């Protein structure tokens, strides 16, 4: 089993056979559709959002084929697969001897952490060359926006550059020396470039640690997301904090249309009224309400589903041990599909960590042996 296989198996486990293979592909590759985002939140898998932004469908399918061939995945029907008993066991064994990424926050950080990392790489290279009095070098980042950002910081710091260089060095050293730093700092630091010292590639790290390239990628991402979380502490890491404070947090960002719907909801209009005013289908407005429920945790659904019915739907889901709407509908015939979806989404949002304890047990097997080197 490759590291990719193992991570995908965790995703299959979280989706519990309720969703198609493609749903998992969209999740890990980071397709930004409301279906993928809803799936991620509903099944507590949002941390895996866009963790493999460059994965091809072919690579994904090959990995699934390997998992099915080893009988770790069982086919339920044409589209849906679930993890077998063997798969569960193999997964536990695997993460007993491999690092488990406990700090991934894919949905929350995917885009901001990526930009922050590019900025850090280029700023470090620039400061390093400046420190060694070299004013010509080939930038390791060619993204014009990143280059532009680094240029402006460089100018802003002006003659204070050496001071900032020293402080950035200290912040990075402190960060990597933190007791709770999740992994070997090599996965971050060895990729960084300085004057006449070019960073290692993911392949080279894989060779150095004798692990596969997927593991390098996820362990790097795990540390990066850990760092991103830590540097929100502005007092402790003022420079690193300033390198990402302008990046807007997209966690609660709604689509423009849903935002308009929300304004009407807050003025106590009904679904039908909003549909009429906005000249949209009722089902569209319902989709907006699902999105709002997912994104805004304080949003109450009581006005759309009576409390007792919420309970009924949730119990049906628990009894069925899945979240397939059709089957729930058979058990609660009075509920509309919209109501069922809404309950699943709202409960899911509260219980979105419902399977995280499972993930933590997997990760707690992390031994010093894995942290070696």
């Amino acid at each position, binding site marked *: 089993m490759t590291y990719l296989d193992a991570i995908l198996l965790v995703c299959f486990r979280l989706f519990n056979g309720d969703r198609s293979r493609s749903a998992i592909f969209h999740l890990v590759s980071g397709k930004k559709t409301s279906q993928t985002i809803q799936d991620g939140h509903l099944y507590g898998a949002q941390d895996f959002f866009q963790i493999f932004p*460059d994965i091809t469908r072919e690579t994904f399918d090959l990995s699934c084929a390997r998992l099915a061939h080893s009988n770790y995945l069982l086919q339920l029907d044409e589209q849906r697969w679930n993890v077998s008993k063997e798969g569960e066991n193999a997964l536990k064994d695997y993460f007993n001897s491999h690092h488990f990424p406990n700090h991934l926050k894919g949905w929350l950080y995917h885009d901001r952490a990526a930009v922050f990392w590019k900025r850090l790489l280029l700023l*470090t290279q620039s*400061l*390093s060359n400046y*420190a*060694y009095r070299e004013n*010509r*070098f*080939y*930038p*390791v*980042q*060619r993204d*014009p926006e990143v280059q532009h950002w680094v240029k402006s910081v460089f100018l802003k710091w002006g003659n204070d550059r050496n001071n900032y*260089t*020293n402080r*950035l*060095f200290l912040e*990075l*050293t402190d960060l*990597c020396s933190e007791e709770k730093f999740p992994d*070997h*700092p*090599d996965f*971050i*630091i*060895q990729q*960084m*470039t*300085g*004057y*006449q*010292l*070019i*960073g*290692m*590639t*993911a*392949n*080279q790290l894989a*060779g*150095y640690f004798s692990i596969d390239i997927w593991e390098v990628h996820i362990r790097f991402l795990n540390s990066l997301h850990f760092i991103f979380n830590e540097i929100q502490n502005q007092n402790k890491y003022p420079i690193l904090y300033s390198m990402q404070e302008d990046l807007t947090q997209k966690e609660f960002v709604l689509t423009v249309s849903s935002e308009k719907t929300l304004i009407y909801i807050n003025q106590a209009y009904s679904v039908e009224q909003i549909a009429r005013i906005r000249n949209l289908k009722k089902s569209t407005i319902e989709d907006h309400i699902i999105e709002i429920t997912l994104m805004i945790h304080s949003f109450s659904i009581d006005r759309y589903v009576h409390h007792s019915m919420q309970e009924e739907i949730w119990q049906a889901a628990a009894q069925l041990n899945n979240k397939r709407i059709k089957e729930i509908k058979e058990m609660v015939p009075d509920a509309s599909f919209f109501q069922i979806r809404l309950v699943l989404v709202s409960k899911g949002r509260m219980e979105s960590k419902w399977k995280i304890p499972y993930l933590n047990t997997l990760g707690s097997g992390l031994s010093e042996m894995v942290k070696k080197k």
Partner: protein
Amino acid sequence: MAGKDTVAMLPTGSGKSLCYQFPSYLTQSQVLIVSPLLSLMQDQVEQIKFRGEKKVIALNSFLAFKERKRALKNLRYYRFIFISPEMLNLPEMKEALSSCRINLFVVDEAHCISQWGPDFRPDYLTLGKIKEDLGNPVTLALTATATVKIRADICQILNMDNPNEWIYSVNRPNIALRVDQLSTFKEKVLKLKGYIESLASPGIVYFSSKKLADELASEMNQTTSKKISSYHAGLEQDQRILIQQQFITDQLDWIFATSAFGMGVNKENIRTVIHFHLPSSMEAFVQEIGRAGRDGNKSLSILLYLSKDEQITTNLLELERPSIRQISEFEKMYNTSSDLKKIEEQIGLSEVQNRVLHYYAKKDSLKKNWVNHVDQQISTRILEKKSKMIQMTEYVTADVCRRQKITQCFDEDQPVPQLLCCDHCGFALDPFKDNQESLNTHLTWQERLSTIFKESENVRSTKNT
């Protein structure tokens, strides 16, 4: 500079890019440079920026929509405009260019016109028309290697009227030439491994397969004392930049690459170039070995040959030929549907095949019996490519001086006899050996941070504790 069209064939690293940079500063004119490979274009732009020139832009598919729009609006303020041939054919690009005053039209790696021709970059063939649209500016075709026939092709396609020709010899006296004929694949790999361990680096090994380059690089990186990485178009851009820069700063001993590596890489001290597979043509071969020894010091080219190696390339060529059935289906679909991707999927064409057929559909759509016409055109190209292969095989098998064989292919005079010449004339490998162990330079993360940020005192303090 006298305002005359020119074809220049100069060895790589001899300052080809000066040919268009210098005149631009002298006459304060705008230069449009057509460049065939995205990575090469990026490298050239970085090199010009490295020099301190800011008014340079690369127009290619890397450019985000917003940036592209901004760039197009301000196009006339750039001194050097690099562009891919595909982009050049976009209507909005043509419009933006009409606001510029292009005084010099440069076609870099101009041999692509012929060598890659319709099979690879159909857009290169429309450059003649583009030149006309630009008001026939002075045209400069640059190439490192081109036979007489290809140079004639270039002039014809670019509508160059009686151009100046600056032709430097393809012979590089400081590069010794050697061919090893082997009988099994295993033997070939072992031979390569021996060379990697013993020959002077930095060096490049060229493969025709990405997968093999990856596999052997990772295997030999583990089992030899040398630092080796693979490089090909399948890697992410930022990883490619790192490997290139590691190689340039001598942090790597060997690069195992496909032909995607090399153009645009300025490195003076490459000592050895090895070909694991037979190159597709003498031009490609000469260009690739020409990356060695730009500093003028003695260097080495080795070609590893397994009998029937040429079969691999020939098979690949045959695979690129669409069947008559596919061509006629294409004709039907082309007239009813404009969705290229759909045509490709339905008929089961490769991307290259689709591009070729599309090109002929645009160019010769009125021809009677289009299907047979196209099939014939494609057959001719394949035959031509095969004859190029045969030239390469002859280089391996012929019993004459290899240097002489190369110059013959380019219709040049016989080279002057020299000491370290080729394995037929006889030379020992000893002067090219270098048993120096690659230094183990792996830093701890603390050391790396301190080095990068030049915090040497902290290095000592962390080491003491």
